[in-house]
């Protein structure tokens, strides 16, 4: 199996053999986690950072007991909790949306990497910058697009990220989220989310078979959602 983290970083620049080897050593002890488990908890001070190898996770803020706002969705290859290495006290939580395979990397090991491998350090830095450019995009989309385009934008973004990671092809992927979870992402009521799903289907912009989403006409959906993938910074160049 290709190392999902190496795959992710190679989206942005070529990795050296030494870097690839180091990344392989990093994922030597994978762990299976069941769905709907908190991997990181708000208020805690983690001593290790979670790297996601398989599955889907969400970063979230708790609003009131039982109510939360998802602020990011993470996919295979995302070093999603690189944040805790420097943030120290967590201002948010991360939970698994599906069964996941993860690796916990001790912060001490990250310190060593940053001291000895400047190029790898820049690439890891870049991934956190991309996390923030996704946040920026979500904020802009939430403020400027209607619910239907907002949802369509999320469907486009998720496909582009999955396909860059090599886990989705042919404009088809699994979006294993309930309508309550999508509601927590979009900031719209669950009933509204169901209605938007139906509306997108009826307009022929997506096909849906349970959690399997197919995009029959990519340009049509991307245009409708005003989706421009520039903010995802995909493409190998010296960094």
């Amino acid at each position, binding site marked *: 199996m290709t190392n999902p983290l190496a795959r992710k970083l190679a989206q942005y620049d070529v990795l050296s053999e030494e870097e690839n080897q180091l990344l392989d050593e990093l994922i030597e002890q994978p762990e299976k986690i069941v769905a709907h488990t908190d991997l990181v908890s708000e208020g805690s001070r983690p001593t290790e950072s979670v790297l996601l190898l398989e599955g889907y996770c969400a970063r979230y803020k708790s609003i009131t007991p039982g109510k939360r706002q998802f602020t990011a969705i993470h996919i295979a290859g995302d070093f999603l909790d690189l944040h805790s290495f420097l943030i120290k006290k967590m201002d948010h939580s991360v939970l698994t949306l599906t069964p996941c395979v993860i690796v916990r990397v001790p912060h001490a090991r990250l310190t060593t990497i940053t001291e000895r491998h400047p190029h790898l350090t820049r690439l890891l830095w870049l991934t956190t910058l991309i996390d923030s450019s996704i946040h920026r995009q979500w904020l802009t989309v939430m403020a400027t697009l*209607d*619910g239907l385009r907002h949802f369509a934008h999320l469907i486009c973004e998720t496909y582009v990220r999955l396909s860059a990671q090599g886990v989705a092809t042919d404009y088809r992927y699994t979006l294993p989220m309930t*309508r309550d979870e999508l509601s927590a992402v979009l900031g719209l*009521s*669950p*009933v*509204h989310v*169901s*209605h938007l799903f139906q509306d997108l289907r009826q307009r022929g912009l997506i096909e849906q078979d349970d959690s399997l989403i197919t995009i029959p006409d990519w340009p049509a959906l991307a245009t409708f959602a005003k989706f421009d993938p520039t903010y995802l910074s995909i493409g190998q160049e010296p960094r």
Partner: protein
Amino acid sequence: MEQKMPRYFFDLSDNDKIFLDPEGSEAEHLELARDEAVRTLTEMAKDKLPEGSSPRKLIITIRDETRQPLESVSIIFELKSLPGVPLESDRSERLP
């Protein structure tokens, strides 16, 4: 044992178009289901009304598990041109 929450269905009619809720949502009681319907309508109103033709009527019918209608919540959007005498304040602005 945990008590099972009732499930409510929220069917929408947007002028003549009907969208049936295929899965429903759980809510502790009808008041919370009504809150959900109101929240949904106000969100939809924000998106749909400005682009819609006038008049526009959005109705959510809340149904129970046997699909019996319990309540309906609606928002009506209507534009009216009002010919007539301009307001005193409008007139004073326009006069030199």
